[in-house]
C-alpha cells in the first residue's frame, strides 16, 4: 500500500525517524516482583515542566525534570533539561539532543546540533555523542559541563538545503577530566585543557582562555564544555583565535547560565510543590489565569466507574460499609460526567447515537468541533473566575453545551469530595481525594489565551 506514496513523499516520510521507547517500559507496566507491587509511577515531567514554566516567565528558562530513562529535546528557546537524576543540560535554541539512561545510571546523550551546557553529578558513565559518534565525552564519578556553540558561518551553511557539512567539536574541561574521542584516536583532557575534534586525526589539544575562577574549581568533579561547530567540508575560515573568542563568550554565558540556574532552582525550591494538585497555591492560580489554564481532577469516564482500590481502603481506614458508599458516589460522579459528555456530543454533532462510542472519543470530537477561539474564551473565563478576576455567571444563566460540560467537569472533583464528606465526614473525603493527589483523571489544560 505504501507504493501509493511517490518516491519524493517516501523520502520525506523516511526522514521522519523517531527514537525508541525506554527498554524498561515492560517492567514499568508489569513489575517483575513482587506481583502486588504498584507500577512504577509515570514520568513527573509534566508537573516539573509546569513548575519550570513558571520560573521561565521570569528567567526565560524552562526547567524540565525528566526521570524517565529516555528523552529528546529540540528546544526553540533556551531550555534547561534534567537528564535523569544526576545530569542537567542547558540547551540553547536550535539545539537537538536525545538521551537514554541505563538501569545502572549510565547515560548516553546524542547531540545532533546546537549549543548545550551539561552538568553531571557523580554516578555511572556519562557520554555525549555528536552526530556520527565523532566525539565522545566520558565521565565516571565526576561532574561534567559541556557547552556547544554554532558558528555564524555554520548557521548560514546549514540554511542551504542539502549542504554537505562536517562537524568540529571543541571540548574544554574546567574540573576533573574527560576523554574525547575522534575517528583518529582519543585524548584525555585535564581541567583547564581543551581540544578541537574534527573528522580526521586525533583530537588536537590547546589551551583555552579559562577564567581563574574556572581553574580554581574544586577537584571533586569534572566540568567541561564543548563547542560544536557545523562547518562545510571545504576548509573553514574560522581560526583557532575565533574559536577562542567563542569559548570566552561561552565562558561568560556559562557563568550567566549558572546564575540563572541557581535562581530557577531557588524558585523551584520555594514553589508550593507539595500542595495537592486540586488545590494549587494562590500564586499558581494567578499564573494559570495569566495563561488561561485550568487544572481539575475528576473521576475517569471509562466504561466502568472507578472504585476505591483495596490499598486506599487500608490507607484511608474505610470500613466495608464506607467503601460501598464511596464506590456509589464515585459511580454517581462517573455517570454524571458521562451523561453530560453524551449530551454535549449530541448537541455539538447532532448525532444522538452515542451508545457505541467511547466517552473519550466523544470528548475528543466535542473539543475538535468547537472553534479554538470559543475554547480560548471559555478557558479564560474559567481560569479568571478561579483567580477571582471575573465573577461566575449568575444563577440561571443559559450556557452553551460545551461550556456547561466543562463547568460540570471542572467542578466535579470538589462536588464529589463534598458528597463523600456529607456521608463519611470531611476527613475521610479529603484522605480519599488525596490518596492519589486528586481523583483518578487529572487534567491541566489551556488552549491559549484569546488574542
Amino acid at each position: 500500500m505504501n507504493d501509493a506514496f511517490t518516491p519524493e513523499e517516501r523520502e520525506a516520510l523516511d526522514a521522519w525517524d523517531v527514537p525508541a521507547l525506554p527498554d524498561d517500559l515492560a517492567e514499568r507496566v508489569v513489575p517483575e516482583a513482587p506481583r502486588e507491587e504498584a507500577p512504577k509511577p509515570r514520568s513527573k515531567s509534566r508537573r516539573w515542566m509546569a513548575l519550570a514554566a513558571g520560573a521561565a516567565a521570569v528567567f526565560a528558562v524552562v526547567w524540565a525534570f525528566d526521570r524517565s530513562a529516555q528523552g529528546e529535546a529540540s528546544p526553540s528557546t533556551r531550555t534547561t533539561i534534567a537528564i535523569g537524576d544526576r545530569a542537567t543540560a542547558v540547551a540553547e535554541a536550535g539545539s537537538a539532543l536525545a538521551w537514554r539512561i541505563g538501569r545502572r545510571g549510565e547515560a548516553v546523550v546524542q547531540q545532533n546540533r546546537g549549543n548545550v551546557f551539561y552538568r553531571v553529578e557523580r554516578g555511572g558513565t556519562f557520554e555525549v555523542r555528536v552526530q556520527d559518534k565523532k566525539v565522545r565525552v566520558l565521565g565516571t564519578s565526576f561532574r561534567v559541563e559541556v557547552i556547544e556553540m554554532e558558528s555564524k558561518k555554520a548557521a548560514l551553511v546549514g540554511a542551504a538545503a542539502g549542504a554537505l557539512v562536517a562537524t568540529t567539536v571543541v571540548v574544554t574541561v574546567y574540573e576533573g577530566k574527560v576523554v574525547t574521542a575522534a575517528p583518529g584516536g582519543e585524548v584525555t583532557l585535564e581541567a583547564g585543557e581543551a581540544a578541537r575534534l574534527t573528522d580526521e586525526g586525533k583530537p588536537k589539544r590547546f589551551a583555552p582562555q579559562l577564567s581563574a575562577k574556572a581553574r580554581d574549581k574544586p577537584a571533586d568533579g569534572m566540568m567541561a564544555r564543548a563547542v560544536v561547530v557545523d562547518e562545510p567540508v571545504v576548509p573553514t575560515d574560522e581560526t583557532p583565535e575565533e574559536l577562542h573568542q567563542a569559548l570566552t563568550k561561552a565562558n561568560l554565558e556559562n557563568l550567566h547560565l549558572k546564575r540563572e540556574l541557581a535562581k530557577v532552582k531557588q524558585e523551584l525550591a520555594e514553589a508550593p510543590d507539595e500542595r495537592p494538585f486540586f488545590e494549587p497555591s494562590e500564586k499558581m492560580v494567578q499564573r494559570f489565569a495569566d495563561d488561561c489554564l485550568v487544572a481539575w481532577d475528576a473521576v475517569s469516564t471509562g466504561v466502568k466507574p472507578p472504585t476505591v482500590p483495596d490499598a486506599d481502603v487500608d490507607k484511608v481506614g474505610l470500613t466495608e460499609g464506607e467503601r460501598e458508599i464511596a464506590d456509589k458516589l464515585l459511580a454517581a460522579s462517573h455517570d454524571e460526567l458521562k451523561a453530560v459528555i453524551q449530551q454535549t456530543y449530541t448537541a455539538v454533532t447532532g448525532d444522538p447515537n452515542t451508545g457505541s462510542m467511547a466517552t473519550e472519543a466523544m470528548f475528543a470530537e466535542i473539543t475538535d468541533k468547537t472553534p479554538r477561539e470559543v475554547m480560548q474564551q471559555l478557558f479564560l473565563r474559567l481560569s479568571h473566575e478561579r483567580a477571582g478576576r471575573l465573577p461566575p455567571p449568575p444563577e440561571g444563566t443559559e450556557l452553551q453545551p460545551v461550556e456547561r460540560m466543562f463547568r460540570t467537569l471542572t467542578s466535579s472533583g470538589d462536588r464529589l469530595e463534598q458528597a463523600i464528606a456529607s456521608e463519611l465526614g470531611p476527613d475521610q473525603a479529603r484522605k480519599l481525594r488525596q490518596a492519589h493527589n486528586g481523583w483518578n483523571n487529572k487534567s491541566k489544560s489551556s488552549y491559549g489565551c484569546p488574542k
Partner: protein
Amino acid sequence: MDELDDVTLGRARRKDPDAQRQLIRFYQPRVGALLFRMLGRGSPDVVDAAQETFERVVRALERFDPKGPAKLSTWILTIATRIAIDRLRKPSVDAEVIELVDRAPSPESRVASMRLVDRVEAEMMKLPDDTRAALVLRAYHDLDYAEIARIQAVEIGTVKSRIARARAALASVREEER
C-alpha cells in the same frame, strides 16, 4: 506486520506477567513510532503515553478477541492513537512552552536552518491530529483505509481525504527544498 505468537498471547490473556512483558516488548517499537510522530519527538509525554497505552492493553487484553476482525497490533495502535489524540487535546503546560517559543526567532528563520526531519515533523505537526494520525497509520503501520476508518470512527472517504491533505503537506516540504 508481524503479530505476537498465539501461545504467548494466550498466556498474556491469562495474566501471565512474563507473557505480558513479552507482549509489551514486541509491540513497543510500533507504539513508540506512533506516539513520537503523534506527540512530537521532543514531547515529554511520549513515555507516559506509551505506559498508559500498555497499562490499558494489559487491563483489557482479556476482552480482546483474537478471532475478531482486528489484529492485535491494530487494536493496540487504536488505543495508542486515542491516547495520543486525547493528550493533544489537553495541551496542559504546552501552552506555556508555546509562549516561550513565540519569543524565539521568527518561524521563517527557524525553518531555514532546520534539517529535513525537523521540517517534515514541523509540517506534520501543523496538521489536524486526526489527519496526522491517518497518515502515520497508513505510511508507517501499513493499515488500510478500512482499518484506519474503524480506528477513527469515520467513513473511508474521510480517511482518504485526510491522507490526501497530509500528502499535500509532505509535498510542500519537498517544495521548500527546491
